[in-house]
């Protein structure tokens, strides 16, 4: 049996498409078998909602009178530095950017209450944002200073453009040292006091499409509550990692770069967050539809938490010093049970990615498709796969 995306879209148009979330499909395949389920089900929806630091947005604020060239000047949005190394009034705000006067970790552990991720959330929420900038002034752009309020409606383009999101699997962070540490994986208590993980597991987009058979450049997705697209493979996209017999990566592997109109998005799905002692960032909601084009594709999408393994890494030593040591591997089923065993000790677990929100995203995307509001796209080009042989290069430091 095989289906095409055009056939599935035709069913969506007629309101006849059978859509299930990556959670719901598991029971259906168990009951009906892969062959029958693949005939009956057209789309499987996935979802994830977690902190994703390599996120950001570009905006065009419009030209004031007289004109100013923000490019190569210094520009702030609510006192958070924005990158302006473009033309006159284009800016990029990154999720981890912090106000110059934020104490950072000078008062350890820092609080990082407001950063680029919060600016993006406020912008999406329609709030006024204070734009302040200084420029050097030219004959054609004479202004040297500006201070004004802008908001989502007053500016021209506002586009979320994340260069790495939706990591296919991720580390489980623990702390073997004798002091509390403050990491991007949350607060880690000493002597294996807790273990934090960050993946939606069986609902996560790329864990349901482990070899990128349907997700590619141009794939239309749920992004931040609106529709977006896969723009490219994300940075640090390394498909060629240790994989289980089911093909699922046992380490961080593929990633997505995504893009979408911020003006369609909603603050519930783009949440500015603060990691004590680490920094500010943005939680992003992403849902990717998987067209059931074959039994093989559906087979991959029925993966469950029991069959997805993640590496346990010591964030007091192995991670910061970039040692390859992995303490153990653990399944998401174990992680989600609330405790795991590490070095013979029971360790309570917690997630940084929100599973209830991931479920809501997969359900929302399912509803959009069933109501004929969201159509599937054929990828314009595939993402690099295992065969591309991409290696994850370290930074070799040198001065000549």
């Amino acid at each position, binding site marked *: 049996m095989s289906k095409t995306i055009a056939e599935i879209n035709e069913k969506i148009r007629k309101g006849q498409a059978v859509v299930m979330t990556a959670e719901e499909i598991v029971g259906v395949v168990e009951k009906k078998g892969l062959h029958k389920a693949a005939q009956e089900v057209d789309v499987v929806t996935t979802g994830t909602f977690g902190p994703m630091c390599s996120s950001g947005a570009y905006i065009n604020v419009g030209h004031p009178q007289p004109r100013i060239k923000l490019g190569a000047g210094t520009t702030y949005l609510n006192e958070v530095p924005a990158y302006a190394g473009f033309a006159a009034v284009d800016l990029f705000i990154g999720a981890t950017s912090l106000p110059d006067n934020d104490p950072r970790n000078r008062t350890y552990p820092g609080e990082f209450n407001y950063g680029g991720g919060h600016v993006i959330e406020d912008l999406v929420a329609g709030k006024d944002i204070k734009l302040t900038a200084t420029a050097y002034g030219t004959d054609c752009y004479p202004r040297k200073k500006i201070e004004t309020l802008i908001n989502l409606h007053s500016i021209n383009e506002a586009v979320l453009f994340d260069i790495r999101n939706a990591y296919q699997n991720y580390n489980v962070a623990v702390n073997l040292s004798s002091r509390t540490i403050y990491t991007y994986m949350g*607060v880690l208590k000493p002597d294996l*006091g*807790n273990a934090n993980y960050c993946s939606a597991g069986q609902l996560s987009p790329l864990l349901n499409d482990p070899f990128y058979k349907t997700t590619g450049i141009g794939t239309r997705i749920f992004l931040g509550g609106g529709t977006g697209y896969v723009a490219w493979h994300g940075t640090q996209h390394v498909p060629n990692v240790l994989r289980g017999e089911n093909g699922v990566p046992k380490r961080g592997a593929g990633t997505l770069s995504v893009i979408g109109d911020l003006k369609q998005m909603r603050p519930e799905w783009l*949440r500015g967050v603060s990691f*004590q002692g680490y920094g500010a960032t943005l939680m992003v909601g992403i849902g990717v539809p998987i067209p059931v084009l074959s039994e093989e594709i559906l087979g991959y999408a029925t993966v469950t938490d029991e069959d997805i393994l993640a590496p346990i890494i010591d964030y007091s030593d192995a991670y910061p010093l970039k040692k390859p040591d992995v303490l153990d591997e653990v399944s998401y089923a174990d992680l989600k049970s609330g405790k795991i065993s590490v070095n013979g000790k029971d360790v309570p677990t917690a*997630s*940084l990615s*929100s599973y209830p*929100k991931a479920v809501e995203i997969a359900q929302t995307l399912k509803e959009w498709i069933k109501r004929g509001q969201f159509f599937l796209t054929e990828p314009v080009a595939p993402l690099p796969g295992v065969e591309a042989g991409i290696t994850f290069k370290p930074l070799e430091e040198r001065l000549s």
Partner: protein
Amino acid sequence: MAVAKRVVLHFPRSLVDEPIIYKLVKDFNLQFNILKASVTPNEEGLLVLELSGDRESYERGVKYLSEVGVKIQPLSRDIYRNEERCTHCGACVAICPTGAFVLDLPSRRVKFLDKKCIVCGLCIKACPPRAMEMRL
């Protein structure tokens, strides 16, 4: 009938030097467990207590406290969760020393059991979307 309640006591400046808790024990036969205290001379004081004893003594003790000018609030109101900001990620669950956050299965939503909360405040900064807020 025995009662055990968690309360927040606000002492005006004039009472900070008075042996109020001593009197609760001696005159009203109440037991106390200090959960949190911040009492500095010449400033307003704050004490978070679990008070227990028989109901009549408890009520007389509370009456005594209000008569001398101590403001009493139930503790459970003091740390609360902004439901709109909470994403139910779970970053708070292992951080809380008293287990006031519980993962509800199978919904995987995080429940906040404010009865277990001792207002230590550890969750406030450990919460990435800053959904936990303190009201004193």
